[in-house]
């Protein structure tokens, strides 16, 4: 098995940590030095190359063929869909949920305002439930929205729920569950002999 012409793009943060654990478990040499700030590690015979990038950029890097494979959360793929990639495996780590949260454990009564950085996911969810909402796009610190009176509810990602509790917020409903996904460039996935080994691992 040789990886000398395979490159994997991995999202920074929790996904990168989970990928490292899986990588080492499979007996591969992890290319990233703990102290290094490098974001690009070229492939060699022992291991694939690696690109470390922002989660939102991973699907683009894979669709454009810069990376053969990518590791990114399902939440990112659902929020920023890209028809030019394949989702080839649920890697079963990096589990988290996108939830509707508010100050009381009660479904909104009537039309309401919701702060979120997951506009597409939230819109699809409330459309499915036929509930009228006004979405307020925010890129971070969503927990503040109910506290400062911007919106009584938020749709945000939770891992342990500690941040919600610290802001006196409670979960009302799970909007979606997410975990790390292995994505692939369709062209490379279907034609590159070096990816055959990856396909075999996944189908085993």
């Amino acid at each position: 098995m040789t990886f000398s012409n395979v490159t994997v793009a991995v999202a920074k943060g929790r996904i990168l940590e989970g990928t490292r654990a899986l990588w080492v478990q499979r007996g591969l040499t992890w290319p990233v030095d703990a102290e290094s700030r490098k974001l690009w590690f070229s492939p060699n015979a022992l291991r694939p190359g690696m690109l470390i990038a922002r989660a939102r950029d991973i699907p683009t890097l894979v669709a454009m063929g810069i990376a053969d494979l990518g590791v990114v959360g399902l939440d990112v793929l659902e929020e920023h869909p890209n028809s030019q990639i394949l989702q080839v495996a649920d890697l079963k780590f990096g589990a988290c949920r996108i939830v509707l949260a508010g100050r009381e454990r009660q479904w909104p009564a009537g039309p309401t305002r919701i702060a979120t950085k997951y506009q597409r996911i939230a819109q699809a969810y409330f459309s499915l439930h036929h509930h009228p909402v006004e979405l307020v796009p925010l890129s971070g610190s969503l927990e503040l929205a109910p506290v400062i009176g911007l919106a009584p509810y938020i749709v945000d990602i939770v891992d342990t729920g500690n941040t919600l509790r610290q802001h006196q917020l409670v979960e009302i409903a799970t909007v979606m569950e997410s975990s790390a996904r292995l994505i692939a460039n369709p062209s490379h996935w279907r034609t590159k002999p070096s990816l055959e080994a990856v396909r075999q691992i996944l189908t085993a």
Partner: protein
Amino acid sequence: MDEWLKQNRSEYELMMMVMNQFLAQSFYPVPTAPAQSGHYREDHTQSILELLSSFPESHLSLPLKVFSLGPVYDPGHGRWAETVDVEILGEGGPQHEVMAIELIMQLVSRWPNLAGQSLMVLGHLGLLDQAMAAESVLPVVRQQVRQALSSGHLVQAESLLAQASPKTRRLLLPQTYGNFVDALGDTVPEADFDHLSRLEGAISQHMGTRWDLSLTGNWPYYTDLVFSLYLENIGQPLLNGGRFLADVQGRAWHGVGFTLYLDPLYQAVQQEMEWTSHDL
């Protein structure tokens, strides 16, 4: 600047070369607009069929071989791609699948190095459906699997098929023709293997193939064979196509068509074009 101008010139020469090949094979050009009703053109086929549907049915003599030239918009990337779209309209039967494949092979063979770097991947929506039906997958689930595959969600398709359809799942991987027909024979013994063999034969004398029923094509109007031509180490298809049935203004159009992307074609044949011009 000279280099840039020369490159533009070469790209247009390539486009003309491709067009001339289709003209020489009795294809008719159909000019289509890049934007209609406030939407950018993402696909030529619909526009071609809308234009042709404006003629009375009695004026049409089928089979009709047409092509359209120009950029299509890719909303996923927010960019335009220069393309040539080719359609063989008529019965859209197996013979037109072979005709389209032979046409592509004639085009690719113009550049001997191109064929050596190319790989044709073939899928088949009809066989996918037959395989799932043979394993008693409910029609509603078959539709969901097809939707999942067409949007690239292999994980979701696998999960829908779960443990109940192990034979179909074996067909959702790229594999050689030999392995594919072995797996298909287990699931759909009544498949038209002679036709599959004709398709494989038409391609394999020029380039390698992979058969993979997870390839379902980009458009909802595909019904049977779908195919993508890929180049080694270029993460974009050189062409995509398939057999279709499209309902346009109440008229059912059967056919086989494909879209050729000129940018990756140029990247792949640039060197050979330079050698040819030096030889001249």
